[in-house]
């Protein structure tokens, strides 16, 4: 009986949101946009979290600001640019692709190519089987 109750309670529970009830916009479409934008913005105080999941005061302020801008009619990219202008590239969870970040974005590809190189050399050196 206890187990059944536990399962029911676990299924009924909802994840704790950092977004406060009074922050949520009435328009569900706009709220979804706000949540999407919030997930792309880094919390500057906690650094590892986006502002959608952070409980820091500043994260809350920026969440509200994002919603204000949306209500004022800004597009999603305009809202992101608004925050980026003030806090720099760092505030974006995905750093923009530009000359200074080419190495960052290209590194996985470089490592993959290096791996191919090593594998090729290794395979070439293997004794040839009977053909």
């Amino acid at each position, binding site marked *: 009986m206890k187990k059944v109750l536990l399962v029911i309670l676990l299924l009924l529970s909802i994840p704790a949101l950092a977004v406060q009830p009074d922050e949520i916009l009435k328009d569900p479409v706009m709220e979804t946009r706000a949540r999407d934008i919030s997930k792309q913005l880094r919390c*500057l*105080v906690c*650094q590892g979290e986006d502002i959608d999941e952070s409980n820091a005061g500043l994260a809350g*302020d920026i969440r509200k600001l994002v919603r204000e801008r949306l209500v004022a009619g800004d597009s999603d990219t305009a809202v992101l640019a608004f925050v980026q202008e*003030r806090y720099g590239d760092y505030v974006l969870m995905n750093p923009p692709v530009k000359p200074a970040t080419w190495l960052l974005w290209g590194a996985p590809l470089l490592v993959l190519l290096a791996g191919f190189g090593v594998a090729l050399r290794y395979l070439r050196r293997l004794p040839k089987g009977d053909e």
Partner: protein
Amino acid sequence: MNTRAFIPFGIFICMIGLFAVPLLQGKDPAILPSAMIGKQVPEFTLPMATGDGKLATADMLHEGKPFLVNFFASWCVTCKGEQQVLAKFTQKTGIAVYGIDYKDTKKDVAAWLERHGNPFRATGFDEAGRIAIDFGVYGVPETFLVGGDGIIRYKHVGALKQSDMDSVFGPLLEKTK
């Protein structure tokens, strides 16, 4: 001896070097570069933290001389020590320091300025922290050096020490004049 056996060791040494450089430089990863340097100081109008009246960007710019903008709060423990440093700096250089009181109450800030000294020509009251966002502030205290042309030249994050004024703000101000 197989020299190739040393390749992983070599990589290991390189990694140590890579991690050691920022550690030895004493860089604090929590201090972020400001995106506002080189940009125009944000436009704002705030009520005064003490007394009546308002503090606006135009009030800070009308002399056409460089000035400092210091974000602080009475609840901010590290802000206390700055007041003396800022007071000394304004006495020495003659430039104005404007305070912006971040997410505070008027009652608390009045008592706090009374107790720890008030080096500010005027103090704006940013109750919601909205103006702080326009300045790209992510915590208190933060201090900006703005040129007479209204362009932000430098931002310091954290409590100001006398050595910061001597080695950074002083020389920068010389160049800004």
